[in-house]
């Protein structure tokens, strides 16, 4: 397989400024997408730019009140890091299988921008930002602004996803559920990531993100606002039904070989309801 192996981040950005490459780190998506007959190397439509080995693109650190994860950090490293909030670690622990998590990177999962990308719902609810670098520019976008459609995002050809960063939430309730065909190596039929915080009966934080139920992961801040600042005693059946119905407007899944639209929507809303009920006092 032919490609360019830059020695540093600067060299990679320099190369990207000159022509189009396909950046590749772990290759767990790309090698499958461009595979050919067995024993033949994959056929990339543009020259691959190997970035998995660049030290500046790997690592997890805490900077002030933010966690910063470099784009080519291995999924398995994130899964095991005590710095990383459990909602993201849980999601990663259910991705693919250990061998793939030892190759795949968080940046790859983000840039792949699949509606079923398993790190995305947790990153959405963490209000994660992605940092993009090009030779002369640095851009910082919220993940939900970065991803624009299935497989589509705001990265320009001359840019490299550099890192993802987010504040660690101080939540009291958390839920992550992935529904796949089986327990390993299965793409999500759907997934749900949710965080909430209630103190003295007052809900001061509520965030929920859904994967694989629309062209991009779904997070609806306007509905979250309605839940926030409520007192848990206000979570009446009527109120919960209202919230569930409102999310129903946003959850627009499709039928495919993995599942049906009806199932995805039903279960997404059932899990939403289950999370809302968790907030209610017993």
């Amino acid at each position: 397989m032919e490609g360019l192996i830059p020695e540093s981040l600067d060299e990679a950005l320099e190369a990207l400024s000159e022509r189009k490459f396909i950046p590749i780190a772990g290759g767990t998506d790309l090698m499958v997408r461009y595979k050919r007959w067995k024993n033949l190397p994959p056929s990339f439509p543009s020259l691959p730019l190997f970035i998995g080995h660049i030290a500046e693109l790997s690592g997890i650190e805490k900077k002030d009140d933010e966690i910063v994860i470099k784009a080519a950090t291995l999924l398995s490293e994130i899964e095991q890091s005590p710095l990383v909030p459990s909602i993201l670690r849980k999601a990663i622990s259910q991705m693919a299988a250990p061998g793939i998590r030892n190759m795949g990177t968080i940046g790859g999962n983000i840039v792949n921008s699949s509606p079923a990308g398993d790190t995305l719902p947790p990153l959405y609810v963490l209000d994660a930002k992605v940092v993009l670098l090009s030779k002369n520019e640095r851009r910082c976008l919220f993940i939900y602004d970065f991803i624009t459609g299935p497989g589509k995002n705001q990265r320009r050809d001359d840019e490299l996803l550099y890192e993802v960063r987010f504040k660690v939430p101080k939540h009291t309730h958390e839920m992550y559920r992935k529904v796949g065909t089986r327990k390993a190596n299965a793409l999500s039929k759907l997934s749900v990531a949710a965080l909430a915080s209630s103190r003295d009966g007052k809900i001061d934080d509520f965030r929920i993100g859904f994967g694989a139920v629309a062209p991009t992961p779904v997070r609806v801040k306007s509905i979250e606002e309605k839940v926030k600042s409520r007192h848990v005693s206000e979570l009446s059946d009527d109120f919960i039904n209202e919230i569930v119905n409102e999310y129903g407007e946003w959850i627009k899944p499709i039928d495919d070989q993995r599942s049906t639209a009806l199932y995805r929507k039903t279960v997404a809303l059932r899990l939403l309801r289950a999370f809302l009920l968790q907030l209610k006092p017993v």
Partner: protein
Amino acid sequence: MENREFNVVGKSIKKIDALALATGEVKFTADIEMPGMLHIAFLYSPHPHAEIVDIDTEEAKNIPGVVLVLTYRDVPDTLHTTAGQGYPEPSPYDTRILDKRVRFVGDRVAIVAAETKEIAEEALKKIKVKYRELPYNLDPEKAEESEQIPPEDAYHLLPTVYEPSKNLAASVELSFGDVEKGFSDADFVLEERFEVQYANHCAIEPHAAVAFYDERGRLNIISTTQVPFHVRRIVSRVLGIPLKNLRVIKPRIGGGFGGKQEVFLEQVVALVTYMTKRPSKVVFSRKEVFVSSRTRHPMITWYKVGAKRDTGEITSLYLKALMNAGAYGPHALTVMANAGSKVLPLFNKIKNLKFEGFSVYTNLPVGGAYRGYGATQGYFGYNVMLDMIAEKLGIDTLEFFKKWHIKKGETSPIFEELGEGKEGVSQIIRSCGLSECIEKGAKAIGWYEKRRKRIKNGDKVRGVGAAILMQGSGIPKIDMGAAYMKMNEDGSFNLHIGATDIGTGSDTILAQIAAEEIGTSVDKIIVYSSDTDFTPFDVGAYASSTTYISGGAVLKCAKKIRKEILKVAQEMLNVPEDALYIENGTVYTRDGQQKVSFQDIVIYSLYTKNQHQIQAVASHIGLESPPPFMAQFAEIEVDIRIGRIEVIKFVSAVDCGKPINPVLVEGQVEGATVNGIGYALWEDYVFDEKGRVKNASFWDYKIPSIRDIPEIEVIICETYEPTGPHGAKSVAEIGINGPIPAIANAVYDAIGIRLTKTPFTPERVLKAIKSQGIKL
């Protein structure tokens, strides 16, 4: 024959090919490379049903490296069946190597042979085909009124129902007693419709074949086959090459499960090599395995059962089976017939019974043999109906099972009525450990503590369910296997068998059977199997026959060898034959005065006096097909919020007679169990409106991963089958039959919902929960 103390049989010795497999030294078909080898690729139909109006291969032929492009105009048009069965095959002759009409998305249109696989693939794109699309049908229930799928001149060798114009590939009917009267005598009658889906064998090794000429001008075929002798016969007939000019070799096989009982690549490599005089090779991609090899036959079954409330007697049973054969009919008759013949004898005291089975053509992928072979399809509804009756009677399902299942010394009229393409063979059950299987399995799953308890944990509810099963051991009075043995100067033996080890371990257990009988150890037995030039005939690895049929041949052969050895020893020691016994490779006189080793005996026989080769050959045909029995138990948890079923524990308790190698028995049962759980919960073909398979890869077609496999407990309830070699019966297939009904019955136990259509996906379970409501 009698049960006795064994030295080699009943011991879990290592598989004789274990080390070579572990070190990667074993060559599989795809590993074979030869100088000048051509690589073959197929062009497949994009239409479910169409006639080829024009096919232009010029451009493809002109690509450098392309050696041969074949269309229906260029190949022999012999009608045949790809079913690798005995002759005459009980499957219709409805297939040509290539045909002017294509019958499903994935049917063959053209064959390319080129210097590399890449060039062959490239050439496929340059073949220009003009099709006239024909009406097509994907629904087996509409087969009769649909456009005819099989060729106009398709025919059946056997005097059986075959109506190609009605898309009827086969039908059988069997009845005794008065079914209507039986229903009117019943206190209650239950009816239900069940449906099972398409599935693939998913053997780890895809289908592959290699052909080449040897230095004597004989055409050699090496292929991933379960049936080397049938391959030789079928290829000879299809291509018109004299059988004596063909040699078929089975190398190491990476799993078959019935999928490699089909002969559809061997005639192609043989033809390419015949035409080019160059070695050729084809290796299927996983997509081709899914779409264009063979599948599990989907089946719809309708059960109607009437019973008496006081005694629990089933007064009448009616089963109708409608099998979807797909676009061609290999095994169309026998798989469908086995849905009755391997299932209905289990409750042998039913006096009024009727079974009607139909196999129909559709424009969908082609069904074939698959572990379980109709029994899997039939046992789903059967065991669910039994569970329903027991519930209605207010008695424990297991008590109901134990009271009515067939017992030792009993028979069923079905054995005689329903065979494989002809009448069956009557038999009396000579060994049956089913009641013990039920009791031990119940204990292992915790039946009495958990049944009807509906233990709830958050959204999850637990339940337990059971199923009972039987299968067969070979096809009686049809299947034959043979063995040849000779003795070497060091007291070792060559054992040549036609039997086909496809990963099952049959080379190992056949060596055990021989070593036991001769009185030596397994390391003295050099096994060579499945080569049509150097081993005697054997039908091959199917119908759970190898241990029972081929093992029977090996046992007979070993008995003869033993006799030969004693004859020489008698001459050497100058004592009467009955004064001798064999122990561990040495012949002793009973008085303890004299002994002579196997080594001395062979040296004497080869070099000293009355020189001759100690050798023997024997054939064996099963006169009966003693069923193995099994009770399977599932403990499951249903997540009622998302509809997902998780199997927590699975117990398979089996009576396979005397287990020749208990670890290999456990392996077969565990494998079949996992195979069955995958079929019950996830595995399915997803078709678009034209019958194109949308999930033809392991990416989208999910089989259980190691994390999905629950705790599996295998319990061997040993019996002794007097007609089997050293008391053995079969074990390979039976374990796939129970997971569907055991899980279905467990789901009912948990949430009170009867699932009647597989796979039990969360989508289906949730739909059932929403429409029926759960009764907790």
